[in-house]
Each structure stands twice: as C-alpha cells, then as structure tokens.
C-alpha cells in the first residue's frame, strides 16, 4: 500500500487524527522527474553540456547495466547526475568534473576514433575497464590521491587525477541515483514505510533484498 495509506491506517488504529502536510505533494512534483523511469518529458540540462551528457549516459549504462533487473539508463540516472552537479556541488568540484569529462572524451577519440555521441556501449565498457581494472593496491593509491586537492598533484599526474575524479564521481552518483530512486526503493529493495514493530532477528531469506532507506 502507498505510504500515505499506511500511515492513515496506523493512525486510525491508534485512534489518532493526524494531518498530512500539504507540502509533501508539492515537493514531489518539483523533482523534475529526473531519476524516474518512463520519463518522456523533455529534460533541460542544467549543468552538463550535451556531449558531456552523452559521456555520462554511456558510463551510467555500463556501471549499472540493464539485466533482468532494471538498469540505471532506464531510470534516467544521467539526468539525475546533471541535477546533482548543478545544485549541490561546489564550483571547484564542478570544474574538475568537467575537465575530467573532456579528457575522457579525448580518450574515446584516441582509442576508437569515434565521438562521445557515436561511441557504443562496447566502447564505454572497454574504456571504463581500462581505468577501473586495477590491482587492489593501485586502486587504493588512486583513492588516496583523490583525497588531495588538485594543486598538490604532480604535473605528470594531473590528467589522470581529473580523469578519475570524473569517473569516480560519475560512478558514485550512479549508485546514489539508482539505489535511492523511487523505482528501486519501492519495487526491488524492500520497501517498509511504516514497519509498526521491530523484529530484531529474522532470516535474511524471509526478505531477500536489503531494506530501502
């Protein structure tokens, strides 16, 4: 049942009258449909350029691909990433993301002689693999380096720094957009808006997937 119905039912059973804030529906409507499935409404990019949007879309599809479970592309996660970039990120982080995106686009051209728009899923998969298939040790080195500010990075390393900034940010925002989306939260993860009680020790098999936030 939807959460409003669940809460109303709960309140009735306790003999309480509760009022729903009218602002709830207003806020939901303001979400721009970014990160929702079956969005056919036109989305106006707020931060990414059109080419960057293609890059991000390509990566999103490789990071969390469509299988028998919905993938990130169908949930318009690239639009969600654009929204997050535009509204919540520091200017410095936005700029570094853009530099990394440009460098990645250059990589696509150099490796496959195609543009961001014409590159295929296979191209994105191959290129992302080359960046992400590192040893555990090398991965940790990258993560440590990412913690430093750009001006502390050696000139010979700076392109790599921005590339990973772009790729890791895209990956993290893909995860955020996917796992906290309404579709995944309500249909794939276990959705329990009003648990009513606490069961401290159940078998995982009873529920299977993780609880949605």
């Amino acid at each position, binding site marked *: 049942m939807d959460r409003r119905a669940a809460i109303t039912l709960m309140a009735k059973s306790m003999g309480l009258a509760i009022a729903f804030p009218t602002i709830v529906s207003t806020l939901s409507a303001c979400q721009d449909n970014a990160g929702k499935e079956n969005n056919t409404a036109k989305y106006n990019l707020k931060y990414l350029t059109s080419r960057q949007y293609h890059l991000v879309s390509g990566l999103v599809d490789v990071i969390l691909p469509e299988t028998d479970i919905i993938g990130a592309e169908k949930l318009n996660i690239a639009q969600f990433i654009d929204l997050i970039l535009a509204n919540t990120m520091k200017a410095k982080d936005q700029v570094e993301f853009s530099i990394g995106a440009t460098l990645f686009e250059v990589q696509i051209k150099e490796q496959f002689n195609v543009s961001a728009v014409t590159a295929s899923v296979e191209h994105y998969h191959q290129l992302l693999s080359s960046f992400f298939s590192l040893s555990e040790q090398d991965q940790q080195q990258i993560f440590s380096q990412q913690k430093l500010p750009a001006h502390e990075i050696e000139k010979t390393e700076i392109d790599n720094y921005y590339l990973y900034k772009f790729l890791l940010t895209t990956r993290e925002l893909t995860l955020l957009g996917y796992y906290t989306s309404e579709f995944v939260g309500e249909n794939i993860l276990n959705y329990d808006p009003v648990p009513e009680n606490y069961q*401290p020790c159940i078998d995982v098999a009873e529920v299977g997937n993780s609880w949605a936030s």
Partner: protein
Amino acid sequence: MPADNCLTFDAIVVGSGMTGGWAAKELTEQGLSVLVLERGRNIEHGKDYPTAHQDTWDLPFRGKPTQTDLKRQHKQARSPFLVNQANKHWFVNDIEHPYSEKKRFDWHRGYHVGGKSLNWGRQCLRLSEQDFSANKQDGHGVDWPVRYQDIAPWYDKVEHFIGVMGESLNLPQLPDSKFLPAMPLNCVEQHFRNKLSQEFSDRTLTIGRVANLTQDKGFEGRGKCQYRNRCTRGCPTGSYFSANASTLPAAERTGLLTLRTNAIVSEICYDNDSKLATGIKVIDAKTHEKLTFKSKVIFCCASTIATTSLLLQSKSKRFPNGLGNDSGELGHNLMDHHFQVGARADVKGFDDKYYKGRRPVGFHIPRFRNIEGQDNHVDFVRGYGFQGYCSRSKWQRGIKKMSFGKQLKESLLKPGSWRIALIGFGECLPYHENKMTLDYQKLDLWGLPTVNFDCQFKENERKMREDMKEQAIDMLSKAGYENVTPYEQEAIPGHAIHEMGTARMGDDPQTSVVNKYNQLHGVANVYVTDGSFMSSSAYQNPSLTYMAFTARAAAHAVKQFYLRKNDHG
C-alpha cells in the same frame, strides 16, 4: 484564555522547548496563568513537519543540501546531518543569527516552538548519587547543593509523563528509570552483550534508553513508535517526547496558557525595592515592535546560551554585570560532552540474519570508569559511556570501489556485512575559563549583542578520550570481531549539542548563580531551569535532568506564588 492584549500574567516562561514546555505545563496545571515566549515561529504538532513522511527520493536532491543551503547554514553544517534536506529547516540561518568564537565552538540550535525537543536524540539517562557528589569529591567546580535523593522523585514524575523505554540494570552509577517495555537488541548486539559479560566483569550492554513510546496507554494524544526512525523530522503520532506533542498540549488543556511566537525576550526587568523581577521586555522578531509583559514569576528556559545571554543583558544598578551575577560566574563554567571517539569493527558469522523495522536507538554501554568502590588505575577523573550501533551495510558500501556491471548491481541490492561501532560520550570538567561573553560591538538584527565563545576541552578530557578509544578497541577485539579500527574526530565544544553551565547551581552566592531550587541568588522570583544551571556535566545525556529540575523548581515557584499571594491578601 487571557485576552489578546493582556500584558500581565502570573508567570512568564522564556522558551517553549524541552524545559519551557515543562514549566508551562506545571505552572498552568497548578493554576497560574502563563505566558510562554518563543523567539521563533509557530509549529503545529503533526501539520508542520514537512519532511516527516518523505522517503529519500522525495527529498530534493535525495537529501543533499545545495551550496546556497551550506553557505546560509555554514556553522550548522559543521554537523552535516543537521543541514540535509530532511532537517535543515530545524536549524538557524547562520547569516541572520551569527556568533563569534575565540576557539571553535559549534553552537547548534533552531528557533521554533518546541526548540531542540523536536529533533533531539531522545536519550534519557538519570544522573547518579556519584555524579552529584563528584565536584565535592575531586574539587572541580562547586558542590551541587542537591543530591540524587532530592531529584529522584522528579525523575519519576517526568518519566511517568514523557515515557522512557529501557531495561533495568540496578547500576549505582546509572539509576534506572520507570521504564516502558524495552525494544529488543538484534542478534549481533545480543552476541556482543554475551561476549562482554564473558570477557569483562565490570561492564554491561543494554538497549539505549530513549523517550520513545513502546506502549501508549496513558499518553494523551500520542501513539506507539512505528519504527520509522525519522524522529528528527518531527513525529506526526507524537511517538517520541517533544514539547509540541506532550507538555505544551497539556498546558493548553488548562486554558491558562498563552503562547506568543516571534517574541525575542531582550531583558528581564528588576525592581530594587521589592528585590524581585517584575517582568520582561520583548522585541517582536518580525515587526521589531517593543513590548513589556509583567508577571510574578519568571522561568528562564531559553536554552543554556540564550538564557545566560538574557541574564547578562539584564543589567541594572543593583546588578551591573547581569541579573543575579553577584558571583561573577555568569557566563563561566561552560561545558559540553566530548564524543566522536571509539572504534568500529566488522562482524562475521551472521550472514543469514537480518532485522525488520528501523529501531530509533542503538545500544548503550553505561559508565564503568571511576565508579565508587572500584579502582581502575586510570589517569583521569569522572567518566564516560558508549552509544553503540550495529547494522548490516547498505549500497553505500560500494562507493569506494572500482567495480561495475551486473554483479555490482545485484550485490548492492542485498544486505552487506554486519558492522558495529562504539561512540563514546565523555564528561567535561567545569573550568571557570571556559566561557561565553556578549559582544556589544557586534549587534544582531534586533540590536542585541551577539555571543562570543571561548571554550576548549583540556587535559582530563584528552586523557579520558585515550581510554575511551582503547577500551572500545579492547571490547570489540575481545568479542572476536574483525578489522577493529579506532575512530576519532577532533573534539569540538558544542558539537554534541549538550552545551550546559554558565549559570551554575550552588549554595554560595559568591561562587554560583542559582540556588538549590534554581532561583537566581538575589532574585527570588526568577528561576533558571534549562542547561545553564548545571554545575557538572556527568556523562549522561542531560535533557531528562533539565526536565526533572524544571518540574521541581516549578513546584517550588508555585508554593512561593501562593504564599506571596496569601500574604498580600
């Protein structure tokens, strides 16, 4: 209900939150007409909790604050959880409400009916006999003029009304409350509890004691906890205690309550002939109109920093350094708990176990250091406890990785491994030099001086934190958990949002600001019952204690009120 233009009341209560609500309830229930002044906006219980029902995908940007939000609330943002989209409206705009700090002090607060009682952590721990004698024992601060037996009946009364859930342990250092049925521990918490009792003889683990209802009989207008764990957003069923759900409605029911919002109390008026306060001056927050209200009794419940600011602002010929400040201690002896130190670990072997429901509290390990009669051989005085959290990780465990594809997607849909964390909360000694002062060079939008903080944790706290970390590591290691990792952030005063002291209680008017009934020394009809009266901090979350002292002080004030009334015919 008194007429809208009424300017005289039996009692005035400054602040509508944790203690203001209690003062209002107690005073009105005992027949006094009460004006409660709240500097912030009105909040209608249930209706004005805009994020209460929202899932992550309903929140703008999945809860992430915007850069504009962060600039507007740049000091509140020092505690990131406070300024996410679910909670940000409960905390001040730092540009409108600035303060200064000689050393970093994180002053977190919001201005609205209910105050911090709307988004508090709900932990309710009684102070013990040992806590009330601590200052006398080791000579730090001044002796409390009360002992546990004086306050115990008031803890009983408050708990009976607000509802506190927990498990009785019969520990002298942490007295039991009159508990509602305890929420259960999950399987790993049970395992940890058993391991602790096997490996240690001096400590135990219990469910955190919180003001959430596990039964609702006898709690008017409030329902049982539904395990949504969205308390900080305001609970439409009043399942945790807040002034809005509980004490203010009780005061309303008497017909004797007047609540005025957007009302900044700027001064308490003192009359030298009667040696009593006569009333207060108010600046309307919106119109800047100036008003005066009169009363026979005044309760200062504006929260620690705000109450002491008000007292410091209330200067007169008799009290040139602030109302009731003969001692010079007003503003001094500022304390806060230090926390954000402990350890974390991974727990293997329970992969087939999970839980259902979001329990709104973790577990608690009560103080086991420097307990009377025990000898720990530690190099610090006073004590600390742990709040603990134990759960299975979610999709966020996948962030700091470079995996991608079908397997990543599917694995992050499943619950991750069990993780456990111990976060210590430690006592802070009362140091005279830890203080707040008023800066008359930096006035706020209403022409009132702003606060300047000069406060830091010192040697005793530093040594205690070393022990907190070591003990946390030891406990998790002895339990057999893996990857035991210490955890420590720099301790910043104010960050725990338990700021207290600055108008401390004591017998001697030369060294304290209020007496054993929370009356200002020298101004018998002004009571100070929010955190500012605390003479020591103990380790326990303090709100329950503030409420108990408020109920006790109100009873005293009512008695005085009727005596005086009878005297004058």
